Every structure is written in structure tokens, then in C-alpha cells.
């Protein structure tokens, strides 16, 4: 799908918001579009809802092509970032807005309302005016207004971004539970990677209008395709390695890595990544194999983990996270320690292939 903004008489003014994106959402799944602001995720969502028209490409719901269907005919209910609660209607009328348009009987509206109010925890607030609601309650009204339509597709435009951190975590658990219970196919837009990980069946990482990688949360986290994805989803260390038989060599040490499908051959440069929690801290001399020896540069206590910045000769500084810290057991800055990579934690980026040509030219 393609979306360009600007004046077609003046091609230089065109901004490509969504650039030849192709995406398939399985029935009943929740797919998250994740990316920094300006990556085109919201534009993509608005095209699905029908608020923007694609410059090129098609949108299908099932077998039906939706390009020429007006927004009000798409049955793709949306939860807006600003909630878009109608300020002139109370909670009940806000939620019932779409049902009233279908001229449903009062009895049926009441019945569906009761169900939705219970699902969203809004029972008892029906007569409130929008300005009497807290942010979380407004969020629930926006959600209730969407799901009461029993839509074939549910769209979320950064729905939790206006809530405070605690409420945000609670709401995303509720959203996920609700979505799984109702089995509504959903597309969810966010720039918050932890939100994307915790809520989705599949995550689509976008940048500059293109899809960088698509996969399950754990798949993306443990096998990012490139540096951008690795850094956008969590923290990552990057290391330059060289392909050897059965793995890679980094800083003179061999590590077993699955290179299947990467197309790398012996002697190629390999860009490797490892998560901070994939690096273990050892006491010097306590292991049979020689680990990396290093010095703690910085040590930050974060509650459930301690984060260290460790400098190792011949390598760029490493970020290391050690779980379950105990008082008196934290290494202070300046301490000498040894680190090792947990088996399977090291991952070779697919984008290493690009290095191949550079490597040959040298």
C-alpha cells in the first residue's frame, strides 16, 4: 500500500508516508504497528479505517476490497488517541451512538449496553458527562463505544498514550484479555515497545513508511533482523565478529551460533547482537573456559536488576543486566569482573550480508 501527501502538481512536495507496505492480519489476531513517530503507522491505520485514501494499493477485509467503501460502511471500529468522546452526550449516549444510528430497539440497546458496561467496568457511570470522567474512564468509554458495534475489525490509535504509567500497564492487560475473549481481529498502533510486546500476537516494526520486520514478540526480540529493530525493541549490545566454522569469533573467542539461512561464509564479517540479560557476570577463575575479563565502569540499581556498563579490552563497552540483585552483592564501579555469553543469546544480524561487499572491496 502506498500513501503520499502533498501537491501532485509539484512532485518535490510529496511526502511518502506509507511506502509500498504489504501486510496480512490473521482473523482473531492482534497485530501491532510499532515504530517511532512519523514512521507511517497511524497513516496506515487511518487508511484501514477509511479516513485517508491510499495513493496506490488495495485494502481487503476478508475477500472484500474496501478502497471505495466510506468510513461509516467499514465496520472497523476505532479507539482514538484523543478518545474523541462526544462532549455534548453523556456516557450512555456516547456508547450508544452507533447503535442509535442503526435504529435498534431500546431493549436491544439496553441489553448490549449492559454487556459492554460490564466488560469495560463502566457500570454505574452511564449518566456522567464526559467532563466528569477521569482519563482512564474516558479511555474505557472510547473502548466501549467501539466494541458495542461488534465490529469485524478493531483499530487502536495509541489508545493508552494519554494515561499515566501505572494505569497504562493495567489497561493493556485488560485490553488484551478483552480482545482475546471477544476474538476481534485488531490492529493496534503504538510507539511503546513494551506495550507492543505485552499485547500482541504479532508485531510489525515500521520505519520511514516501510516495514522493517514482522514477527511474534519473542521472535523479534531474540532474532532482530537489523540494528534498528534490535535497538527499538529493548536494549542491545552490538559486536563485530567473524564467521568461523560452526559459529563466530569475537575478540579471539569462539561462540556457537546458528548461521543457517544467513548466507554468510567463513571469513565474512558478522554483525552480532546480544541482549544485556544474555551476558552473565562471573567471578574470575570460577569457570573452566576463559571468559572476557573487564572492568565495571558504571553500576545502576534498577530494582529487579542491576545494570552495569563493562569495558573489555578489544571490544566496545557492554551493557550487562544481572537479575535478582542482593544487597552487598553489587559490583561497584572500578571492580574487575569476568563476563560470559549465555548459550543461544548471541544472534547474528541478517543485515550483516551488506557488509560482505564492503569486506570484499577492502
Amino acid at each position, binding site marked *: 500500500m502506498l500513501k503520499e501527501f502533498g501537491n501532485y502538481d509539484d512532485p518535490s512536495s510529496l511526502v511518502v508516508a506509507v511506502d509500498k507496505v504489504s501486510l496480512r492480519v490473521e482473523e482473531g489476531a492482534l497485530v501491532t504497528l510499532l515504530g517511532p513517530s512519523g514512521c507511517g503507522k497511524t497513516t496506515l491505520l487511518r487508511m484501514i*479505517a*477509511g*479516513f485517508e485514501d491510499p495513493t496506490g494499493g488495495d485494502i481487503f477485509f476478508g475477500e472484500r476490497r474496501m478502497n471505495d467503501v*466510506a*468510513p*461509516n*460502511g*467499514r*465496520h*472497523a*471500529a*476505532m479507539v*482514538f*488517541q*484523543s478518545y*474523541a468522546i*462526544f*462532549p*455534548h452526550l453523556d456516557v450512555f449516549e456516547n456508547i450508544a*451512538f*452507533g447503535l442509535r*444510528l*442503526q435504529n435498534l430497539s431500546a431493549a436491544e440497546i439496553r441489553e448490549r449496553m449492559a454487556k459492554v458496561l460490564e466488560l469495560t467496568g463502566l457500570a454505574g457511570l452511564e449518566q456522567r458527562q464526559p467532563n466528569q470522567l477521569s482519563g482512564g474512564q474516558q479511555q474505557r468509554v472510547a473502548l466501549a*463505544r*467501539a466494541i458495542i*458495534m461488534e465490529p469485524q475489525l478493531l483499530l487502536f490509535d495509541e489508545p493508552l498514550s494519554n494515561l499515566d504509567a501505572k494505569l497504562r500497564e493495567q489497561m493493556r492487560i485488560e485490553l488484551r484479555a478483552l480482545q482475546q475473549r471477544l476474538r476481534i481481529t485488531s490492529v493496534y498502533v503504538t510507539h511503546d515497545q513494551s506495550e507492543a510486546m505485552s499485547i500482541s500476537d504479532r508485531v510489525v516494526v515500521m520505519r520511514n513508511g516501510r516495514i522493517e520486520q514482522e514477527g511474534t514478540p519473542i521472535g523479534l526480540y531474540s532474532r532482530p533482523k537489523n540494528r534498528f529493530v534490535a535497538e527499538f525493541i529493548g536494549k542491545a549490545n552490538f559486536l563485530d565478529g567473524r564467521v568461523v566454522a560452526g559459529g563466530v569469533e569475537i575478540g579471539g573467542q569462539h561462540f556457537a551460533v546458528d548461521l543457517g539461512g544467513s548466507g554468510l561464509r567463513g571469513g565474512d564479517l558478522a554483525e552480532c547482537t546480544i541482549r544485556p540479560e544474555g551476558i552473565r557476570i562471573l567471578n574470575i577463575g570460577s569457570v573452566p573456559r576463559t571468559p572476557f575479563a573487564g572492568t565495571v565502569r558504571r553500576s545502576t540499581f534498577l530494582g529487579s536488576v542491576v545494570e552495569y556498563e563493562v569495558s573489555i579490552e578489544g571490544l566496545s563497552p557492554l551493557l550487562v543486566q544481572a537479575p535478582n540483585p542482593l544487597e552487598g552483592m553489587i559490583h561497584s564501579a572500578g571492580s574487575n569482573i569476568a563476563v560470559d555469553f549465555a548459550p543461544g543469546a548471541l544472534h547474528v544480524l541478517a543485515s550483516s550480508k551488506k557488509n560482505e561487499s564492503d569486506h570484499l572491496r577492502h
Partner: protein
Amino acid sequence: MTKFGTAKRQIELLARDPLLLFLVGAIFLSLAIFVAYPLVAVLSKSFQSEQGSFSLENYVRFSQFGYLWNALWNSVLVGVVTGIAGVLLGYAAAFTIVRTNIRFKKFLHLLFILPIISPPFTSALSVLMLLGANGLITHKLLGIADYNIYGFKGVMLSQVFTFAPVAYLTLRGVLDSLNPTLEDAAMNVGAGRWQTFRRVTFPLSLPGIASAFLVVFIESLADFGNPLVLAGSRFPMLSTQAYLEITGSFNLPLGAALAVVLMLPSVTAFAVQRYYLQKRQYTTVTGKPTSSSSKLVSRNTRRVLTAFVVIFGTFILLFYGTIIAGAFTTVWGYNYGLTLRHFIYAFGVGMDTIKDTLIVALVSTPLSGLIGMLIAFLVVRFRFPGKGAMEFTSILNFAVPGTVIGIGYILAFNQPPLLLIGTLAILVLNFVFRYVPVGIQSGIAVLRQIDPSIEEAARNLGADSITTFRKVTLPLIAPAFFSGLVFAFVRAMTAISAAIFLVSAQWNLLTVQILNQVGSGRLGVAAAFSVILMAIVLAAVAIIGRIVPGHERGMRTVTISEGF
């Protein structure tokens, strides 16, 4: 603490800064003398007999004379009809500009607000030239002999044209602040375009519509120039009748009583607007700017709206084209040959008037802007007893028709120690206090947006309150200040209703001069004066616009506050 105790404590706090205490006192005093006292003078005069003793005879006469009742009825009727027509036109125009992607938006916007910055009776002049007994359309094109445009239809036509732009500006502000995401949300749950408009857009703009109606109603009621030119003798209207009682029959008490009657519907409408409607406005502004949805308007609706806007714009161009053409036409209606003699006459005879007008406007404008900003600053940032009264009194003058204020000034300042009649001072003071509300409204709006912590930060870094105002607050409110100035200047240049009572042989104004020329049938000279006046106003707006970047927006927020 008792109420009195609180007041005492507040004064003590204020007294820690003697300059502040002095300012508050000075403003109270001047508002009492130049706003409240003239109104009280009108009120007390209306209860006097012609001999000066207390009596109800003016009001008794009002209820007895049919033509006075008619005047009230006619004024209210014209006000209501103009209000409805103005709101319909204004809403359609505002909706088209805000919710469609038609081209030349900026040009259309400027065209729509042109009537706001011209003297309020230029359209009356155009109506006369196009549709009068010797009008271009009625006489020349249609061949109707002695067509009578005077009366209801003439005043109505002229006023709708004059005040629809006011409704347009108010409603544009309303529609601009209405989040289009709400329309998206309605369509998203199945509402069609018309349903979305009827159930979301329209109800949300309803308070704004009511507000725009009342503003136009107030302006129409207070209008003086259009009725004077077009009402005619068989269609009496209140504002002109009050003027005629005073300048024609020299019956001050009856004129005052008419002024009081005129004031009642205006002030009622103002009170409803300010204390009821404004609280009901839906502001749906959120942090994230959303692209305006063009899905609300179908292709056909867009065509209809575009056609409407083009027709509306064409009428405005026609009206102004007529004035300009009239200024260069030998004798309108008889000899359509080109001439410059109206301008030669205007610059010859009228040079002094042009100078007077400029002096009055240039002196009163900055004063009014400064006082307005100062009152806004005091009201928003400090607590003192009588704060509400200060705000109310200073804004009152916008609701009171100019005719009433004019009568109040001649009653209040005709004897020592405040003998001001016939001086420059009375004109300047009148304009200053009449247009102070503009500065106050825009100042309050801007100051409320400025986080007090910015000023606190300055204090925290060692600035005293005066330095803080000078170095931090003033620069932040400067755009609003200057746009307030533009508005006050435009108004000072084009005002007529109060000024017509206050001009003298030494100090005359262009607007009065134009009306006199129309009265004596010299339409060409009147048109030439109008062109000169509009040229000066446009030049001033352009110059200030050049100096102060971003005043465009300010101008809009300021003009919206008109009538409040």
C-alpha cells in the same frame, strides 16, 4: 475570615507594591468617571422632565406615542432578522473554509472580513448607489422609476452584509476549535455524512451559533449609520430616533429615555451571551494536531458550498467596487463619466477632517491598548476587592450601544470641572474606554495561556515584579497587544454612533463627514471619503501586520471577542 477581612488582607498584600496599589486605584477611578458615570447620567436624565424635576413623563410618552413603540419594534425586528440571516451566511462560509479544501482560502477569508474593517455604513452607501431611486441596478439596468429602497428591506440588506462577516469570524473560531476526530469517530461507528453533521458537528457548534446570533443582534441594534441612511422617515428605529430627539428637537430627557430603552435588549443579550452561553462552549482541543477530515463533505456538497462562497464573495466585491466606481463617477445615476473632482473636493475641504480623524485614532489607540493590557494583567494575576466589578465595568461599554454612550458623554461632560464638550479630549476618551474591552479580552485570553510558572521562574531568578512584567510578560503578550491595537485603530477610524454626538467645528471625523455628504445627496464625495478612509485603514493594518509577525491569528481571536 470575614469578607471584609479578606478584602483588607488583599489590599495589604497589594500595598507591598505601592505602584500596583496606585494603578488599581487609578483604573477604578477612571472607569467610574468615563464608563459608569455617563451611563448613570443617561439613566437619571431619562427620569427628568424638560424642566429638570423628577418625573416619569418620558416613559409615559414612550408608551403613548405609536412611532416610539414602532421604533423599538422595528429595531428588534431588524436585529432578529439580521441575526438569523447573518448566522446562516456566516456558518456556511465558516464551514466551507474550515471543512473543505477549496482553493484561495486566504483570499476568501480576507474578502469576508473586509466589511469588518470598513465604516459600518459603506454598505448603506452601496445599497443606495445600486438600488436607490437613481440606482445602477434599479434605475439604469431595470428601468424602474423612483424605486423606494428605504425602510425595512434596505436596512436589512445593508446590515446583513455588514454583520454576516462578524458571525463568520465567530463561527470560524468555533469550528476551528472543534476537533475533527469527533467527526471521524461518528463515521467510524456507522454515521453517514449528513448524520455526522446533524448529530455531532451541528450540536457541538450550537452554543457558538447562539453566541454569534446574539453578537450580530447586539451590533444590529447598536448600528447607527445604516438606519440613518436607509431607514427613511416611515421606518423609525431606536438609535436614530434617540439622535433625532436630541439634535433635532433638543429634547434631551426623551432622547435619554429612548437610549435606556435601546440599552435593555442589548445588555440582556450581552448578559445571556457572556454568563450563560460562554460556559457552554465545547472546547475539544487536544494536544495532538489532527488533520482535518475532508470525508465529511461529499463532492456535491463541496460544489454547492463553493458556489455559495463564490457568490457571497462576488457580492462583497460588487459592493466595494460600487464605492470605488462611485468615487470616480461624475454624478452617479445621471452622468457615469470619469472624474477626479470628488477626490479634489475631499482633499480640499476635508483635509482637516482627515487629519482630525488620524489624530484621534492615533492618540486613543495606544492608550486603549495599554489600559486594556494592564487591566487584563491585574485581573488575571492579582487578587483585590472589586476585581469582578473592574472586569465587568470595563467590558460593559462593548454591550452598550454607541448612541447611549454618546448621549451619556454629552450629559456627563458639559459642565466644569469636567467640561469637555467640543474638545479633542472627549473624542479620545470616548474611544479609549469604548475599545478597552478589546485589549482586555485578548490580554486575558493570552495571559491565561501563559503558565504563571514562567513568571515565577523570572522572580525566582531575581527579577522584581516590574522587571518580570517588562522582560517576560510583556514580550509574551505583545502579539495580542498589537492585534488589539489594530482592532482599536480600525474601530476608532470607522466609529460613528457615539462620535456623532461628540464632534464639533474644531474636531470633526471622517465618518461623520461621509454621513453628512450622503445626507446632502453628494454620493460621489461620500464615496471618495469612504475610499480614502478604507485606504488608510488597510494601510495601517498592513503596516502593523508587517511589523508584528503572527498578528493574523491574534486579529482573529481579538475580533471574535467583539461584543463581549
